[in-house]
């Protein structure tokens, strides 16, 4: 059974149809990259999969681990193992980052009938993962994303991913606004988490990120549909030639 199976997905936001019949299958262990021009529907796809309620699904179905994802509330999808690294992480003033991450972990643990982690069990793990992401210790008790630089915010997303250990991690333009060092660190965090039980959907504008996170499959999203799919070499070609669909390869190669 595939981890994620998207069939004929149509979705709209504020009355505009953005996704127009998208098909995609992702198996556990795979890294997929979605590339495409502005407005093609990349972030909409991420939002729909994370069950953001301002995005309305008008047709199609999505199975996650065999369950109907479209029936789930955002928190249920999260507890089932869908994680979204936000393009624009949100600030929550007055709430310490560690406290927030622990609350999230415990919400998910509770969902699976596991005991909650207390601060003593949590902190060593948290600090160890922070170290991998080369995050400053002083960020432990800072409010969620408040006063974080752009790069710190993105690293904080990856830190949360590392702590919550999702089955499917969606990275929505995590590379945007990152300098090359930050990019390398973020990629290191992601690569450390690759494994047979976890899949990644990496949404990006540029080939650059894929130099560090090598995808198994690359898909080109144009006007709400996947118009081309291929291996990592496709990203390089796109970097060269742009997103204009080449009429020759239109038959879609769906990854197994």
């Amino acid at each position, binding site marked *: 059974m595939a981890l994620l199976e998207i069939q004929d997905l149509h979705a709209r936001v504020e009355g505009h149809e953005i996704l127009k019949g998208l098909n995609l299958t992702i198996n556990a262990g795979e890294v997929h990259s979605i590339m495409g021009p502005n407005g093609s529907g990349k972030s909409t796809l991420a939002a729909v999969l994370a069950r953001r*309620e301002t995005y309305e699904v008008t047709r199609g179905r999505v199975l996650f681990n065999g369950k109907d994802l479209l029936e789930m509330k955002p*928190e249920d999808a*999260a507890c089932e193992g869908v*994680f979204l690294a936000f393009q624009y992480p*949100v600030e929550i003033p*007055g*709430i310490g980052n560690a406290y*927030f991450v622990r609350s999230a*972990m415990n919400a*998910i643990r509770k969902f699976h009938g596991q005991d909650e982690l207390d601060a003593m069990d949590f902190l060593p793990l948290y600090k160890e993962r922070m170290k991998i992401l080369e995050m400053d210790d002083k960020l432990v008790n800072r409010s969620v994303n408040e006063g974080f630089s752009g790069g710190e915010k993105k690293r904080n997303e990856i830190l949360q991913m590392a702590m919550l250990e999702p089955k499917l991690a969606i990275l929505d333009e995590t590379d945007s606004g990152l300098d090359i060092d930050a990019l390398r660190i973020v990629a290191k965090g992601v690569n450390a988490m690759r494994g047979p039980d976890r899949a990644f959907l990496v949404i990006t504008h540029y080939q650059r990120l894929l130099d560090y996170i090598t995808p198994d499959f690359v898909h080109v999203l144009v006007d709400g549909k996947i118009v081309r799919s291929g291996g990592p070499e496709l990203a390089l070609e796109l970097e060269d030639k742009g997103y204009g669909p080449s009429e020759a390869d239109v038959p879609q190669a769906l990854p197994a």
Partner: protein
Amino acid sequence: MSSTVETIRGLAEQDYKWGFVTDIAEDRAPKGLSEDIVRLISARKGEPEFMLEWRLNALRHWFRMAKEEGAPTWANLTIAPIDYQNISYYSAPKKKPQLESLDQVDPELLRTYEKLGIPLNEQKMFSGVAVDAVFDSVSVATTFKGKLAEMGVIFCSFSEAVQKHPELIKKYLGTVVPHTDNFYAALNAAVFTDGSFVYVPKGVRCPMELSTYFRINAAETGQFERTLIIADEGAYVSYLEGCTAPIRDENQLHAAVVELIALDNAQIKYSTVQNWYPGDKEGRGGIYNFVTKRGKCLGVNSKISWTQVETGSAITWKYPSCILQGDNSVGEFYSVALTNNRQQADTGTKMIHIGKNTRSTIVSKGISAGYGQNTYRGQVKILKSATGARNYTQCDSLLIGDRCGAHTFPYIEVRNASARMEHEASTSKIGENQLFYLRQRGLTAENAVSMIVNGFCKTVFKELPMEFAVEAQKLLGVSLEGSVG
């Protein structure tokens, strides 16, 4: 979006969890307000002549005010007219227990306190909180008296203080809030039945938090508390006031007065968590809370600090203030006010700078949900004499949903050019993006709102004593349950 709105609405529609009524025989005065009633109250309490005179004076003033101008209308509140002749001004539990032991307290009453989680029983007493429980209008139990007495700290009901320490009452009563101050203060002065009295002698640091739980119980019984706290030179005291009330249909009037006096180098910290019955979803019932709280920093280097968490009452009209008379004195006001459903709050503070180098800090956090209307009203006044005065004001509003309102009315009056004033204000709405972010991490909508609100209130909560802070956080959660959007 719509389902988020639903969740906020759900949180807002949570039922009041502490609604129960205790069945105790009452000794109650006939309805109505007159000199005879005031004489009856004073006689029942066996008061000395000077108290009766003081009350009658206040009553005459109140009658004049009622005739000439009526209740104040300047607040941003919609209040149905109150028939002051349709209220009973005195009620006391008939079985008047002696104060030596809890065994003598009506068990029914003890059960009520237990439901409220008030630590009145023996084991809980060791938690270090002395409780002067006010049930309706008469104090029925006081704990830790012995230990406090050893240090010379007087902590008793107001009635007892009138009997045992008339010289202190005579000297300080009405010196911070005179009966002429306002309509409700005049009413309170005439008919107040009980309250708390604290005196901390020179150089004594009160070894425990003093705590009073108020509870309004009898339907249609207005409650008129009067609290007087005096910290003598170099003394320190922290006082906690917490309250819940059972569900009733009729509006219940509450007009309390609190006076604080800090002499040279003295400090008073006064914390309140207020959770009176707010009325139902349509705005029926609920407590009308008209309170006059004021502290006077009479001595040099004195400090008065108000912290309040206001989540209850249908109407809140309350401005805990500081008169900074002594040089270098400090006034602080930290406030969280939450209005949900049809609740209305008009609350804030006054900082009156008289002495040199006086400093004040105001941090106000208003949260509105449902159809709640939340107003911050603050006055900072720097008099000519207050050379080197400073004020910092921060005033933030948080909106949940799109049917509530937040309003701010800051008044600043400066008569000395050396003053330094800072004012910051913000209004924000719990955004769909914030909620989605937290929910994407696995938190339910309710927990997400609760987390955002608690974060918003953090700077105020950290001013509360530890156990109170925990209680306040829970209270906010409960008050918002059923309200997410």
